């Protein structure tokens, strides 16, 4: 059986972590061919060819595939679909945008955010903000799947797959890219960081969120946020952790001024060690925290920064 895996690429660069985690999930399903698509994708394809478990890489470079607009990217994937039983990708926002479109064009159901592989037809996925885990068996001829990266360990490097160049499918010409607003940061990526420090509404302002960032930098951590912190403008949207934001499972997750709503827990409760700092001892966050500190964050965080 053959698997087509859509590599995660932004601005021509392979997202190694997300892609290698999806490869780890997909290896069990069959021979993995990686599709590297973008306006520039050759370097990303080259990088993907080194992932253990990849047997072949297809590189499709075309301006219309830039920024991975859904219509052109889905058309390309569908044009290749005939050769594969499984079409998979890491569950990034790009893939969540494209893969359901691919599935509908193939008249199959999409399996979103799969967290486990039981067999070639059967997958586990969290539902209801992770409050239940469902095992589903697909009756479709082809399976279109996005894998929740936080539950798979990345495949190693050391492979040497062959790389082939292919052309893009016809451009449906339905959308164009205008601009990206991406904040450059030297911090680790939120979804692959070993340590994440997140701030919530309790932080109180954008200015005071600097305190969260300072603690993060002390720990070499990525910065996360609750929805309330993002809605209030303390933190950018791409920091949101939760049911409808990013799902993380670092070795250490520090939640500061976050109450622990189920929608937030959905994005972090698989972290190895959870620390919560909250002034309200009744906060639900303490039910999932390994170490809970009932304290005012404005006292505790500066002290913590000093003592670490």
């Amino acid at each position: 059986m053959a698997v087509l895996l859509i590599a995660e690429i932004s601005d021509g660069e392979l997202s190694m972590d997300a892609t290698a985690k999806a490869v780890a999930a997909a290896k069990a399903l069959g021979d993995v061919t990686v599709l590297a698509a973008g306006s520039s994708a050759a370097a990303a394809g080259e990088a993907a060819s080194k992932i253990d478990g990849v047997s072949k890489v297809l590189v499709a470079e075309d301006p219309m595939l830039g920024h991975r607009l859904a219509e052109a990217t889905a058309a390309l994937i569908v044009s290749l679909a005939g050769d594969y039983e499984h079409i998979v990708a890491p569950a990034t926002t790009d893939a969540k945008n494209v893969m359901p479109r691919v599935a509908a064009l193939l008249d199959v159901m999409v399996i979103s955010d799969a967290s486990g592989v039981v067999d070639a037809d059967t997958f586990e996925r969290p539902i209801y903000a992770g409050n239940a885990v469902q095992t589903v068996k697909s009756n479709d001829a082809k399976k279109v799947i996005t894998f929740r990266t936080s539950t798979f360990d990345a495949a190693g490097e050391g492979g040497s797959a062959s790389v082939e160049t292919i052309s893009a499918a016809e451009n449906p010409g339905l959308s164009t890219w205008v601009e990206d607003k991406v904040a450059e940061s030297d911090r680790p990526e939120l979804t692959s960081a070993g340590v994440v420090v997140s701030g919530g509404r309790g932080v109180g302002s954008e200015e005071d969120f600097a305190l969260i960032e300072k603690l993060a930098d002390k720990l070499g951590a990525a910065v996360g946020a609750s929805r309330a912190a993002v809605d209030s403008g303390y933190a950018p949207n791409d920091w949101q952790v939760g049911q409808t934001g990013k799902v993380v499972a670092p070795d250490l997750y520090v939640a500061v001024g976050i109450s622990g709503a189920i929608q937030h827990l959905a994005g972090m409760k698989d972290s190895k060690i959870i620390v919560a700092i909250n002034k309200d001892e009744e906060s639900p966050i303490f039910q999932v925290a390994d170490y809970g500190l009932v304290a005012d964050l404005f006292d505790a965080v500066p002290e913590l920064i000093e003592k670490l």
Partner: protein
Amino acid sequence: MKVLVPVKRVIDYNVKVRVKADGTGVDLANVKMSMNPFDEIAVEQAIRLKEAGQAEEIVAVSIGVKQAQETLRTALAMGADRAILVVASDDVHKDIEPLAVAKILKAIVDEEQPGLVLCGKQAIDNDMNATGQMLSALMGWSQATFASEIAIEGDKAKVTREVDGGLQTIEVTMPTVVTVDLRLNEPRYASLPNIMKAKKKPLDEKTAEDYGVDVSNRLEIVKTVEPAERAAGIKVGSVDELVAKLKEVGAV
């Protein structure tokens, strides 16, 4: 322009969900149900477009059990003009899959010819994040998912999307399907007079068969279980104790 807004009846986001003992799913009998929060944002956006003179009519559609008409009444009370209920099951525990929903929506879009379909980006029950993209695919239309800003200019819509790296703005050709994210707007509450008025607004009732769509599952549910519980932790009394514990387990 007509705007079509699909709305789903889901368990209220504040309700603690319980997995049924027989593993077939989550217990939905006698629990509070509400409109999917993302769909409220979609309805709100449609109303704002109408208020801005960019939309003439808002049609809300719900596909599911008969009780979904309550969800449609909520949409009407918020400001939708009329509603279509497609009864596709009489079992509250049956979740109609996004592919089947998209097929029914396609049939309705073919009939109604809206210029814009506004969907929630995901339903908080099955967390699929798929219906809007699937409808767009079946229509052969453009799509703009995870919208935090929408500006319609002639036959184009400029949409800012919440993506992993930050924000991306794209321009899509109309007609189009837009799926909405949390930061697009803050939905209004329906006022009491509007709730009363909504009772008189037209609500058409159809069935999945009327549209010739087979709603049987493509994904067979093998089992549903509670997630693994985290072992209870401890409270530490001071920052010093916290640092000591973290050092002890090698976390820092």
